């Protein structure tokens, strides 16, 4: 159940990020491009976020209520919606994304992009920082907001980037890739920096990476992030400058980044279900 809940959460984030990333790129770098397939891609991301989000909602409700059957879950749903931040945030964020995709469909791209970004960032309030008061809570919350922004702007825009690299004419694709790589680099720096903050506050020492499931998953995430960074660096310094000749290799690299990015999000979903090692041993008091 814990694993399934984590996977649903990761898939929900992946769908949410890709829908948001598609709309955001359409509102910025792709504003003047004549590119088909953007709207289906945004709707696809929305559908994934919705289905995985529904699964996450049910599993989380079952966990909250310690439910033994469907009746327990059904009874708990109104309480989860009304009295938990989880329920309010998930419903609110899905409503925001639905509205964003509808606005995007209608041509209000910038407003849609803002709304989708707001929905991405709101997820931060479900983390430890959001529930904690005091300076430490604020630092964690701020770092979670930045982490989500970096992840959504980078991982979320990869599917639409791949679509654009496939379909746009060579010169336009090369221009897009050149504009995209500094954005990717900036996101990597933000992701690594905010991950370090979480590492210090939630994991503690390097030894904990090897001593707990939480640490092992976090370690896997760091490793995948390292691989992603390597791929992004290769894109920036080697493949992008030699476009359009390196077009096929670049598209393959972006496809690989998408797969790795999805793995990172699934690991993140699982990680969020587990207990950070800095906490273990405190349970009694």
């Amino acid at each position: 159940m814990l694993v399934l809940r984590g996977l649903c959460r990761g898939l929900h984030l992946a769908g949410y990020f890709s829908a948001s990333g598609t709309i955001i790129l359409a509102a910025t770098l792709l504003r003047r491009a004549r590119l088909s397939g953007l709207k289906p891609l945004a709707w696809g991301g929305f559908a994934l976020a919705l289905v995985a989000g529904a699964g996450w909602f049910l599993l989380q409700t079952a966990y909250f209520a310690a439910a033994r059957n469907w009746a327990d879950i059904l009874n708990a749903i109104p309480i989860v919606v009304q009295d938990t931040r989880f329920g309010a945030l998930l419903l609110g964020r899905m409503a925001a994304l639905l509205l964003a995709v509808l606005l995007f469909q209608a041509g209000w791209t910038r407003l849609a992009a803002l709304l989708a970004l707001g929905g991405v960032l709101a997820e931060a309030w479900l983390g430890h920082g959001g529930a904690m008061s005091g300076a430490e809570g604020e630092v964690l919350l701020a770092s979670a907001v930045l982490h989500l922004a970096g992840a959504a702007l980078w991982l979320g825009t990869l599917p639409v980037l791949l679509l654009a690299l496939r379909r746009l004419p060579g010169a336009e694709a090369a221009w897009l890739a050149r504009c995209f790589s500094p954005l990717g680099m900036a996101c990597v720096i933000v992701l690594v920096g905010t991950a370090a903050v979480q590492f210090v506050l939630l994991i503690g020492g390097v030894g904990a990476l090897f001593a707990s499931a939480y640490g092992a998953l976090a370690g896997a995430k760091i490793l995948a992030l390292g691989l992603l960074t390597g791929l992004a660096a290769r894109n920036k310094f080697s493949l992008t400058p030699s476009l359009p000749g390196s077009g096929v290799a670049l598209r393959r690299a972006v496809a690989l980044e998408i797969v790795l990015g999805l793995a990172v999000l699934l690991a993140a979903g699982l990680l969020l279900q587990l207990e950070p090692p800095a906490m273990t041993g405190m349970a009694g008091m």
Partner: protein
Amino acid sequence: MKRFLPLLAALAPVPAFAHAFLKSAEPRVGAVVATPPAQLLLTYTEELAVPFCTVTVAGPNGAQVQAAKPQPVPGHENELAVKVRITAPGKYVVTWHALSQDTHKTQGRYSFTLSP
């Protein structure tokens, strides 16, 4: 890489109070009180989803003495109030299960003693 490990380890561990753990209680954890309290107040390190929190209080003879489910404390999202019916002197064991607004569950147990 090996060289950086001690450096990283030195940056570490600042234990964070992630998840809802008991920060303080009224009557205090382990306290000996002279007058029976009408309610217990439990304060946590994180904000709580109160409908999914439970608190049971077992008296000296093992019988449960909590009068109702834990109630929210308006304006203090990290607190629980539990009405109790306490008369007999002796040791009272409080067992709590908390759901934090961060979606994580925690549990714990402590006691206090009534000695008029």
